[in-house]
C-alpha cells in the first residue's frame, strides 16, 4: 500500500536531515503508529507522504501513486492536521460542505455523508452552530470529518486526540476503528503511547529522522528488557533527555 524507499528530507538552511534514508512498508488496512519525541521527523514524514513538501531524495508510492501525481494522490488520501483547520465563522455543516466540495462531492451524496459522520461522532445537535462556539473535543471531531468525507484509502492523523476530553477521545478512536474496518489504512502520530499501544496494529519508533524500531506493540514490549508497556520501550530507545527545539 505505502512503500517508502531511502526517503530523505533536508529543509533549506537546516543543518541536519529531518527524515534520513528512511525505508518503510505499510500494508493495506493497517493502523500504523508513527511514534517519536518532538522533532523526530514524524510530521515531516507525513507532510512528505501528503505531498505538502517534496523529498530531497528517495521515493515513495501510495497505492502506486507518487508525489508526481499530486491530484490523484490527494484524492486517495485524507489528512487530519494537528491544528483545527476549520473556519471558525462557519457552522459545522458549512465547513464540511466546503471541504467535501473540494473533493468533488456535491448534492445529496455530500449531505448524507456529512449527516452520517456527524451523527456517529455525536455532533448532530451542533451541525448548524458556528465552529467558534465549539469545545476543543468538538472541533477535533469536525476536523476529522472534514478529512474523511471522500472516503480516503489512506488516512493520516497528526495527533488527532491531543487536548481533548476522554469522552471525545473515545468517540474519535472508535470512529477511526470503524473507518479501518471499512478498508481505510490509517497512519497515526501521537504522544499518547498507551493510546497507540491499544489502537495501532503496528508502530514505528522514529528518532533523528530514522526508524529505530518497528513492529506490533506487544512484540516491541516483549523484545525490550524490563519493558511493561510501549512507554518503557520508547524511553529505552529514545532516552530520557528533553527534546526541546524551536
Amino acid at each position, binding site marked *: 500500500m505505502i512503500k517508502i524507499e531511502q526517503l530523505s528530507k533536508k*529543509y*533549506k538552511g537546516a543543518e541536519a536531515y529531518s527524515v534520513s534514508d528512511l525505508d518503510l512498508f505499510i500494508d493495506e488496512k493497517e493502523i500504523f503508529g508513527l511514534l517519536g519525541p518532538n522533532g523526530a521527523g514524524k510530521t515531516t514524514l507525513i507532510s512528505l507522504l*501528503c*505531498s*505538502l*513538501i*517534496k523529498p530531497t531524495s528517495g521515493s515513495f508510492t501510495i497505492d502506486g501513486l507518487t508525489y508526481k501525481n*499530486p*491530484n490523484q494522490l*490527494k*484524492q486517495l*488520501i*485524507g*489528512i487530519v*492536521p494537528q*491544528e*483545527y*483547520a*476549520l*473556519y*471558525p*465563522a*462557519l457552522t459545522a455543516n*458549512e465547513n464540511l*460542505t*466546503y*471541504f467535501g*466540495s*473540494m*473533493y*468533488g462531492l*456535491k448534492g445529496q451524496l455530500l449531505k448524507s455523508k456529512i449527516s452520517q459522520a456527524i451523527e456517529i461522532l455525536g455532533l448532530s445537535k451542533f451541525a448548524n452552530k*458556528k465552529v467558534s462556539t465549539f469545545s476543543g473535543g468538538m472541533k477535533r471531531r469536525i476536523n476529522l470529518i*472534514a*478529512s474523511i468525507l471522500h472516503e480516503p484509502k489512506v488516512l493520516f492523523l497528526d495527533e488527532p486526540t491531543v487536548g481533548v476530553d476522554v469522552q471525545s477521545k473515545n468517540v474519535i478512536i472508535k470512529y477511526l476503528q470503524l473507518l479501518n474496518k471499512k478498508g481505510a489504512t490509517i497512519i497515526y502520530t501521537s504522544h499518547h503511547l498507551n493510546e497507540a499501544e491499544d489502537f495501532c496494529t503496528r508502530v514505528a519508533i522514529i528518532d533523528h529522522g530514522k526508524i529505530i524500531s518497528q513492529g506490533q506493540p506487544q512484540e516491541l514490549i516483549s523484545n525490550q528488557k524490563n519493558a511493561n508497556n510501549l512507554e518503557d520501550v520508547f524511553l529505552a530507545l529514545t532516552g530520557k533527555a528533553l527534546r526541546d527545539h524551536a
Partner: protein
Amino acid sequence: MHKLWASTYKEFLLLTRDIGGIAILFIMPIVLIITITIIQDSSFKTISDTKIPILLVNNDNGRVSETIISSLTASNTFQVIQKDKEQEARDLVFKGNYQLAIIIPEKLSSDLDKKVNQNVEGILSKFRLEEEEKEIQPEETILSKEVRLYFDPATQLTFKSSVKNGIDKMISKIETQSIYKAFHEQVSEDDTEVIFETDNFISFKEIVPKQGDKEIIPNSAQHNVPAWTLFAIFFIIVPLSINIVKEKNQGTFVRLRTNPVSYAIVLGGKTTVYLAVCLIQFTLMLAIGVFLFPKLGLPTLDVSGRIFNLFIVAFFAGLAAIGLGLLLGTVAKTQEQSAPFGATFVVILAALGGVWVPVFVMPKFMQLLSNISPMNWGLNAFYDVFLRNASFIELVPEIILLLLFFIITALISIVYNEKKNAV
C-alpha cells in the same frame, strides 16, 4: 466549476458573517465621498458662502488703496479687516490667526499719480506738444512702491499663488487706469469726453464640450465621485489581504493544499466575492451622488447615458485592485504586515494616480511612475466617461491595462505560492 462555486459561496458566508467588516466596507467609502465632496465643492463654486478673513494695513488712504479694498470686498472671497500697524498684522498672521495680511505703503496713490504724470508728460514732450506751453522742469525722483504680503507659513502654495496673481492683476489694472487718466487730463479739458476705452480689448472665453445643444460643464461631484470611488475600490486590498493571511494562520490553507484543488480556484472564489463587493460599493456611491448629494446642497452626479460604461470601468478597476490584494495576501505572513502596507500602498497609488494632484503638474519622474499606476488608468477611464463623454471603444486601452494588471498580479500570486510551498 463546482469547486469554484463552493469557494465563492464560502467566501460569501465568511464575509456576511462579519457584519462589522461589511459595515466598514460599505459605510466608510460613503462617508469618504460625502466628506470630500462637501469640502471640495466650495472650491468649484464661483460664489462661496464662506469668506476668508484677511488683514489690511492702509498706510495710503488714497484712491489706489480704496480701489484695492473695494475690489477685495467685491470678490466675495475675502472679509477685509483693517489694522493700523504692520507689526500687529504681521504677528497675527505669523501666529496662524489669519492667512494673509496686505500692507499698502504710504503715499501709494499720490506717488503713482505723480509717476504716471511724469511718464505721460515725458512721452508728450517727445511729440513737442508740451514744449510750447511749459518750461522743462527738473524731474522729481519717485521711488517704486511695494505692497507687502504676509502669509501664514501653513498656507498652501496654491492659495498663495492665486492671491498673489489676483493682487498683481488688480495693481496692473489700477496702473493702467491711472495712465489712461493722465493722458486724458493732458489732451482734453472735458472730463466727460471719452477718449480712451478702458474696457479690456482682449478677453477670453472657455469653450466647453457639448452634448447636443447642452454644454457639459463638470461640477464638483463629477470630479470627486470618480476619484474617490476609485480610491475606495482600491481599499478592498486591505480586507482581502487580511482574509488570505487569516486563512494561512488558521490552518485552512494547509488543509486546502492537501485537497485536490488548485490555488487558482481558491483565489477565484475570493475574486468573485470581492469583485461583487466593489460593484456594490460603486453602486452605492453612484446612488449617493445621484440621490443624496442634492439633498445635502451638493451638485447632483450626472450619470445619464453613462451607466454601462461606468460599470465597465468599475468592474475592471475592481479586478485590478483585487489582483493587488491577492498578491499582497499571498506574500504577507501576518496581518500586521498586510494591513498597514495595503493601506499605505493605496494612498501612494492614489497620489501617483492623480487623485490629489493632477498628473500634469507632477515632476517628470513621477509622471512616468503615474503611467504604470493602475489607479491612474482607472481614473482616466472614469474621467473619460464622466467628463469627456467617451464611448466604450475609447475606454478599451485603459480597460485592457487594468485587466492585464489583474492577470499579472494573480499569476504572480499563484507562482509565488507554488515556490514558497516547494520547501
